[in-house]
């Protein structure tokens, strides 16, 4: 274990010309630089996706409003969904995995640094392709540019007959290309975790974050592949006269749904498992306690990984499956709640008897626990097929999955941002601004997404550019839109905090949280080679062992 680092030539780096530094970033194969590029890229698209959401909400502020045309509205929700899932959530998750996994397992880089760079640039080009459709494509009949088939692009709306022009091609190509990037990164993370752990770090002594990213990467490998296959089939339909999804020539619209959701549902877990990973690192540190039930947490995660691949057709309860098929998917869906519940209880068990410090990362973590609980419970409602016949494709569903993706995943990501910001930048963020961000965003989140359940219960379907007056939906839509303002201000505070602290923040030191995993043993930011000497570990909390030589973890594990 060495906390000593070679003199990192910061002065020289800062004085190099801009073009040189740009060249270094563009050609880098360093996992930390690629991680940060993934994250910045995702933040850029987060802002774009957020602006799209804001326009959607302005349009829905009152019935029969014409702030935007139906054509533009349809493009906006398609781009919002596609952007947020494929070009915000996925890259940000990969970014953190890239940055943290080698540091936490005591490695000097990922297993395949060049594949790593290749994967990032594929993902980046995917996002550019999607937005290039704005200048290069036409959409549905009578519509303009940009994809407008919805983020899950059900057949046969995507066929040439209903979607002439090239916007759907840009959509499918961007998913295809970024999918290659995702698969590459998944292989890389897997190989890194399996082969590059430091001496002493058996699988059972890995930090939970590494375990959870191992599960996440295996899932990416299994489920992004069918999605990629489906995109190729769609391209064959559109360009080579294939009929996979062309129902008028013997193809099947339902086939696309299966292909999409065998990816689409595990995708939620691909995003939420890294969120679990952040929680499993942050909650212990700010409760000052070791994670409760480490082996059970690992088992629960692996269980979720397997189960979540057997639930996809709960997105299809309304397509007319047999009662037996529906019942099967009800059972498998509800079964996922068991390992998920176990995880929540173990985090509570970790907090129990601790000394909880309400720093910004912990505030976001508590927000995560509360909101993930609610998201899980509305998930049970949607999982009960007959209830889903009413709730599917309604605003209740929209509220539910935003509860998962914003209330749980984004909150966990914010926690991770604040927790590892000192490590990545070497500077401490402003705690005051962090708390402002938390309270503003939490207020806005609940105003928007709690209330959004109600119009769904009152029969409002998703993806409608406007709605009739007199259905009791007006007031709820108004409140939902007002919540957006708070969220937007919260995000501005967050971005300001990141930028301002980078230039003006106090130096954070190597280990500002008095934490226990290996990344805190090296300098902030870490040198290119991470560790001057490769550490050797004896327990899951190597820094705890160092700090408490009289009471080390390895005696109890």
């Amino acid at each position, binding site marked *: 274990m060495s906390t000593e680092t070679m003199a990192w030539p910061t002065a020289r780096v800062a004085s190099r010309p801009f073009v040189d530094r740009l060249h270094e970033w563009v050609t880098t194969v360093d996992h930390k630089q690629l991680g940060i590029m993934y994250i910045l890229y995702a933040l850029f698209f987060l802002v774009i996706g957020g602006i799209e959401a804001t326009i959607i909400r302005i349009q829905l502020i009152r019935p029969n409003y014409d702030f935007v045309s139906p054509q533009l509205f349809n493009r906006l929700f398609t781009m919002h969904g596609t952007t947020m899932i494929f070009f915000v959530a996925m890259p940000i998750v990969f970014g953190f995995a890239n940055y943290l996994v080698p540091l936490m397992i005591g490695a000097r880089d990922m297993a395949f640094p060049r594949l790593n760079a290749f994967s990032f640039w594929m993902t980046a080009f995917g996002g550019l392709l999607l937005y290039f459709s704005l200048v290069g494509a036409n959409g549905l009949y009578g519509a303009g540019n940009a994809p407008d088939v919805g983020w899950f692009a059900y057949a046969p709306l995507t066929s040439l007959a209903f979607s002439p022009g090239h916007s759907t091609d840009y959509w499918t190509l961007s998913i295809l290309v970024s999918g290659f990037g995702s698969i590459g990164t998944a292989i890389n993370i897997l190989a890194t975790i399996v082969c590059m752990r430091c001496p002493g770090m058996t699988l059972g002594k890995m930090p939970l974050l590494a375990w959870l990213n191992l599960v996440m990467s295996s899932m990416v490998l299994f489920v992004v592949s069918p999605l990629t296959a489906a995109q190729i089939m769609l391209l064959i339909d559109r360009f080579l006269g294939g009929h996979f999804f062309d129902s008028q020539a013997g193809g099947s*619209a339902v086939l696309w749904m299966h292909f999409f959701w065998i990816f689409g549902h595990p995708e939620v877990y691909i995003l939420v498992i890294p969120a679990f990973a952040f929680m499993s690192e942050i909650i212990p540190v700010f409760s000052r306690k070791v994670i409760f039930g480490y082996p059970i947490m690992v088992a629960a995660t692996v269980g979720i990984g397997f189960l979540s691949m057997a639930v996809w057709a709960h997105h299809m309860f309304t397509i007319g499956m047999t009662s037996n098929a529906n019942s099967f998917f009800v059972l498998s869906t509800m079964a996922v709640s068991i390992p998920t519940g176990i995880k929540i209880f173990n985090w509570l068990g970790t907090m129990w008897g601790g000394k909880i410090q309400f720093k910004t990362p912990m505030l976001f973590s508590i927000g995560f626990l509360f909101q993930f609980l609610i998201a899980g419970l509305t998930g049970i*409602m949607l999982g009960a097929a007959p209830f889903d016949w009413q709730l599917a494709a309604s605003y209740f569903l929209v509220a539910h999955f935003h509860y998962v993706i914003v209330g749980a995943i984004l909150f966990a990501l914010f926690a991770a941002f604040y927790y590892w910001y000192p490590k990545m930048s070497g500077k401490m963020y402003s705690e005051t601004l962090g708390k402002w961000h938390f309270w503003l965003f939490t207020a806005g989140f609940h105003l928007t997404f709690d209330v959004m359940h109600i119009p769904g219960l009152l029969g409002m379907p998703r993806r409608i550019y406007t709605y009739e007056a007199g259905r009791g939906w007006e007031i709820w839509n108004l409140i939902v839109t007002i919540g957006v303002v708070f969220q937007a201000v919260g995000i501005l505070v967050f971005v300001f905090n990141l930028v301002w602290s980078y230039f003006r923040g106090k130096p954070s030191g190597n280990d500002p949280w008095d934490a226990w995993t290996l990344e805190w043993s090296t300098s902030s930011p870490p040198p290119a080679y991470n560790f001057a000497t490769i550490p050797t570990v004896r327990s899951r909390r190597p820094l705890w062992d160092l700090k408490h030589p009289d009471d080390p973890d390895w005696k109890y594990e």
Partner: protein
Amino acid sequence: MKSLKKSVSSCLAVFLWPVGRAFAGPAGPPLSPTNIFAPASTPADSVFGLSVFVLEVTAAIFAVVFSLLLYAVFKFRKKKGDDGREPPQVYGSLQVELAWTVIPVLIVVALFMATARVIASVQNAVAPKSAIEVTVIGHQFWWEYRYPGLHVVTANELHVPVSDPKHPTPTFLKLLSADTDHSFWVPRLAGKVDLIPAHPNSMWIDPHETGLYLGQCAQYCGTQHAKMLLRVYVQTRDEFERWIQEQRQPAQISDAVSKGRHIFETTACINCHAVAGTVANGRFGPDLTHLMSRDTIASGAVPNTPQNLRKWIQNPETFKPGCLMPSMQSTDQDVDAMTAYLETLR
């Protein structure tokens, strides 16, 4: 179960009533004419019963876990004057883990059994002899209704008889699509079922009370998905029979509107629209034989008034931008004549 339902609906009502009342139209039921918690037909009622059970279970789980979270956050926060020592490190407990595994398993089993029962009762119901059969065909962006046994074809406004529990006359819907995916969702009558091309589906409703039930397409189907509205008119048996008799008649056309008829039949209108008893037999658009018997046009988008009809013929984009009916660029006189003709199709 009945009292439970009442208590839940009253809880919901307390929560939603004041605002809902202020904004709901005078004709609608308390909160919304599309409230899923105001079932008026057996499938919707079965779903509602299950919903109440699921809501109770999830509310109980929420209460327990939320209290634990709240307790932990307040009880175990770092106190002022803390000695700075680390709290005792607890690595886990198999007994506790077992407890919070077994209890959720039992809950899941209970939820699953309740759910599977309702799935079977709704999905596997067999049509009685007295059932009315209707074929629903989803189009971009309107609904076609065919009554195969009764030789009636109509559009956008579905008429069904009320179903008396003693002499049930449920309506069984066969769901087809002419183009993209759609979804038939009238929340007070039943959950939604999708209309998928080359994948016939079915559902059934047995409304207990007469009246107008609203809904709309619930699966994104293209540009005008939002204005693909559903209107189900539940009538007494007699009213329904009379409606069927009227709809079976071919169009009654007087010579007074022969100019409008001529224009209608010599422009592209008849490529898409049918008027029984005339040369117009297009099938891409709604059947217009009894257009004026309908309350709305453009799939429920606007009331069927002469002014609206005229505007619609002149340029459909005014009401439904992106709909598939083109403007024929007709002169004002031609539009007037066609409107006059269509107004005679009762």
